[in-house]
């Protein structure tokens, strides 16, 4: 995790309001077939709204979405976003969508009122998920949004729930072993 950064500098992909997870983020068939392999999901990310997205998007690019992004408590699209190293800034997310994104290890700022008015697809953005600082280099504008809570950054920094749980167990085992040595 040495290369993990809370500051992303990349290109903006702007989406509208109420983008559903099924269809809007990733095709429904990959959700119903329970496809969780990032390499199989990546070619289909935003496929139905922006064909070829995965060929243009680069690590550190940032999705900026409107209200109620990612409706539906599904993980598949976030798995792809995490694997591609994309960040997410949105005006609001239904709670279950937000929890799923965090659990998959996506850097995400939510409750960013008016975010879609501050950028257009193609703009060069800098977003610090630790502080909530949002800079549009193309427009020369800045904004301040609510940062990611520290407790959730702990999960995202480890790649999501599984990574967090793995580290928790390893630390616990190491503590138990060193405790036994002392005895």
């Amino acid at each position, binding site marked *: 995790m040495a290369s993990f950064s809370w500051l992303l500098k990349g290109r903006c992909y702007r989406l509208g309001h109420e983008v559903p997870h099924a269809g809007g983020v990733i095709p429904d068939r990959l959700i119903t077939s329970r496809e969780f392999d990032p390499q199989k999901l990546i070619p289909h990310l935003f496929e139905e709204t922006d064909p070829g997205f995965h060929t243009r998007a680069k690590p550190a690019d940032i999705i900026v979405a409107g209200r109620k992004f990612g409706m539906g408590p599904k993980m598949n699209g976030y798995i792809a976003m995490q694997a591609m190293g994309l960040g997410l800034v949105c005006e609001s997310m239904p*709670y*279950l969508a937000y*929890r799923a994104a965090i659990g998959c290890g996506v850097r995400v700022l939510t409750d960013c009122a008016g975010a879609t008015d501050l950028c257009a697809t193609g703009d060069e953005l800098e977003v610090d998920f630790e502080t909530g600082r949002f800079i549009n280099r193309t427009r020369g504008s800045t904004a301040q949004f609510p940062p990611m809570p520290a*407790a959730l950054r702990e999960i995202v920094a480890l790649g999501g*729930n599984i990574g967090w*749980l793995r580290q*928790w*167990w390893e630390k616990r085992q190491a503590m138990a072993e060193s405790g036994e040595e002392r005895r």
Partner: protein
Amino acid sequence: MGMTAVEKVLARTAGMQAVSPGDVVYPDPDFIMIHDGLVRGAKRELDSLGINRLAAPDKVVMVTDHEVIYGSARAAEFGVINRNAAKAWGVKQFFDVGRGGHGHIFPMESGMLLPGMFYFDNDRHSTNAGAIGAFGFRVGAEISRVLATGTNWVSVPRSLRITLKGKLKPHVYARDIGFYIARLIGNGSLDFDMDYRVVEFAGDIEQFGLSERTALCNSPTELGAYGVFFSPSQAILAFAAERAQRPFTPVYPDADAVYEKEATLALGDIEPQVALPGSIRRSVDISEAIGQRIDHAFLGACGSGMYEDLAAAARFIAGRQVAPGVRFFVAPGTERTLKRMAADGLLNVFIEAGAIMLPPGCGPCNDAVAGPLHEGEVSISTASNSNAGRFGSKQAKLFLGSPATVAASAVAGAITDPRTTGVN
């Protein structure tokens, strides 16, 4: 600044003086519940990480309520996996087939879930806990972290308050109130966003017993609510005290607790409701649905599976027959309720009428593992929602109503207003 009851529950279990909406806390739960559909996934996940012991096996409650009778090879396999997991994890509170019933009902009836408590659950209908004045928090598949570590992060939710005024008209029931609220939100006349909110019911709630409170916990859940709360009445406290498995301290909201929004509802304005296929937001006065022919009826599930719900429905069945061409499934919520029905004759009322009794649990209201529908068929039920595909075919039409409406309709073979049946 004052706290709501749920905020107080979270503050106590997180070891804090006070909490506010948006705070991220790690509550130490009174217990942890996982149902039969999730055990395999959680076991696999923990096994893959080498996690071979749970933080607090004595707090873990395993429940078999989703696939009670194994209708498939997969269900039989899950049964074996679940029993093996209980052994491997050292879980003693394992309410397997025939041992408890619906996990969102029997803990209240048995004194396991008590006023003021907090617990983690994989399932969203943990909102039922509000009926007895407790808070259950749904974590979905993240239940594995709770099992391993004993807790998980909880962002303190904001609260909404709905004040109920007056009394319901005859043959209007608590489920009708829930459908009515969903309808007001659906048509925009109640500007509430329930996503991740706690909905607190206040006002003239003393008149509502546990089954009615439980019914009222159901619809907000379908609208995104993460919790529902009723301040426990003296009757609820007496009920809990009679069966409590341990001491408990009820919680109540402070007078200056903060609610994001408030609304008042006149109960006397509400007619029996029917939720049209697709969403409970599409609920209408029953007059708009009367006469719709049905093939299937179902009574039970987490919102309408208590003894009082079945007794209310039985009044419309007694001495009558289920209509030809209709299959009517009845799933008592719990083993306790089933035994009570057997002892006092209520069970016979359903059997004599030609109803098909299902074992305590979720009934068809879980991806139709029992009693599914074919495309084009029509059902009316007390299921938690009318989403396409809930009972099998996505081309089936699912209507919802109160237990009385469902029973009256099963007898008539078409959606029927319980007020027109001659039953007082």
